[in-house]
């Protein structure tokens, strides 16, 4: 599955389309560089899930909780050293909590992710406003295999 977005509002529509296909409870891992549109996609997904308030960057608090038509958790693991720390923060509880859990920088705790995790890749397209958004196979599993 692949979408092409030409603007932030396109990305919101794509996130809403993705939400309609999503089986809940769901864990969604986002992959992409700084400025690739991870925040924008998360905002669109939260909106589709009925969250009425803005979903802000959780970089400083790691985990933000919101309430929509389903519980919505936004997690950024950028600052974590590894899976033990994620465990200490209670990440496993969120992964089993139901609703939708969106994770950025999931590679910091790849071992903790459930098998059913949906992985999304966001990349910049040909011009500055374009983004390619794809549902992909677990890129972390491949990475783990490669490392073995």
């Amino acid at each position: 599955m692949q979408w092409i977005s030409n603007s932030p509002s396109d990305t919101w529509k794509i996130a809403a389309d993705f939400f309609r296909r999503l089986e809940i409870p769901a864990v969604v891992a986002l992959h992409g560089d700084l400025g690739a549109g991870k925040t924008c996609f998360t905002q669109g997904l939260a909106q589709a899930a009925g969250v009425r308030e803005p979903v802000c960057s959780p970089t400083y608090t790691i985990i933000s909780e919101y309430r929509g038509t389903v519980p919505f958790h936004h997690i950024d693991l950028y600052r974590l050293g590894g899976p033990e720390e994620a465990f200490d923060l209670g990440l496993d509880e969120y992964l089993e909590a139901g609703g939708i859990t969106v994770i950025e920088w999931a590679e910091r705790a790849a071992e903790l992710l459930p098998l059913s995790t949906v992985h999304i890749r966001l990349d910049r397209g040909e011009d500055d406003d374009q983004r390619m958004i794809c549902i992909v196979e677990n890129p972390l599993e491949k990475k783990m295999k490669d490392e073995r």
Partner: protein
Amino acid sequence: MILLGIETSCDETAAAVLVDGAVRSNIIYSQIAQHAPYGGVVPEIASRDHVRKLPGIIREAMQGAGSSFEQLDGIAVTYGPGLSSSLLIGYSAARALSQRLGIPLTGVHHHEGHIYSVFLSEKPPVLDGAFPMMVLLVSGGDTKLVYMKAPGCYEIIGQTIDDAAGEALDKGAMLLGLGYPGGPVIQKTAEGGNPRAVRFPRGLDNPGGEWKYTFDRKLCFSFSGLKTALLYHVQHHPESLKDETAKRNLIASYQEAVADALAVRIERALELYDCVSFACAGGVSLNKVLREKLGKLSEKCGVPLKLSSPKLCTDNAAMVAGAAFIRQSLGHPFILPDDVNPNLRLENWDNT
């Protein structure tokens, strides 16, 4: 009334003693050096460092105020929002101390601390004539406009829809390889630069697109696009980082965009709401360019501006004890939380 304040919500370990709301000691240990190599706060390092430093910091605060533990009337501690693993250290220490000493413990919302810090000094706080007040709360983790009809009465009228202002400064500094934390280093390297050399977006300026939030769009902030604009600028103009003058101009322009985006929103808020004063609090309120802009705005609209003294801008424990003191002195009882709450929301004192 002698209160001990404790604050460990992020990467500052802090304790302070206030006597009748007057700051007698305000000890802050910053972990910045520990986190700098990672470009941001690492939770595990933060909580370990809090454990190591907090007992000494509390002792220092008590000694600095010339008080003994037996003289304390209560303990105030930040119980959210923040990093759960960091909050827990201060909360556990405060709770244990209050039980050992048999004195009340009160939980304080971190942002309430920042808000009331504008009233704190070596003298007891005076709130008369300050309300209704508009508050711009700006830190690494938050950017909000709070309208306060009276003390303890909070109406969030606008906020960031993505990154916080401090985060924009941190991420900008990271992109430019300037180091961490972003605010001070950007201010320093921007000095003497031309803030109008590069035009960066102020966020949400373009009226197009959908708006699905209940907030007035004109009072909300967006810094995510600013960071991306900086990234593109550097990629399209790699020469701007090689020449010292060009680099200084670029950084000054970026800082200007952050400060301007903040100042413009509070100006709009002051036009829409009847206020007799306005305030700016939180770590980013230390920024010189922002302070100047707010000072000019105050002159222009004739509404007095309240800023915290520099030692009370970044995270500290005097503001925590100060908020608890003000709450208590206005007749609202202490709240004893059962636990920390990393996602704590600002709530009115009369629960409405």
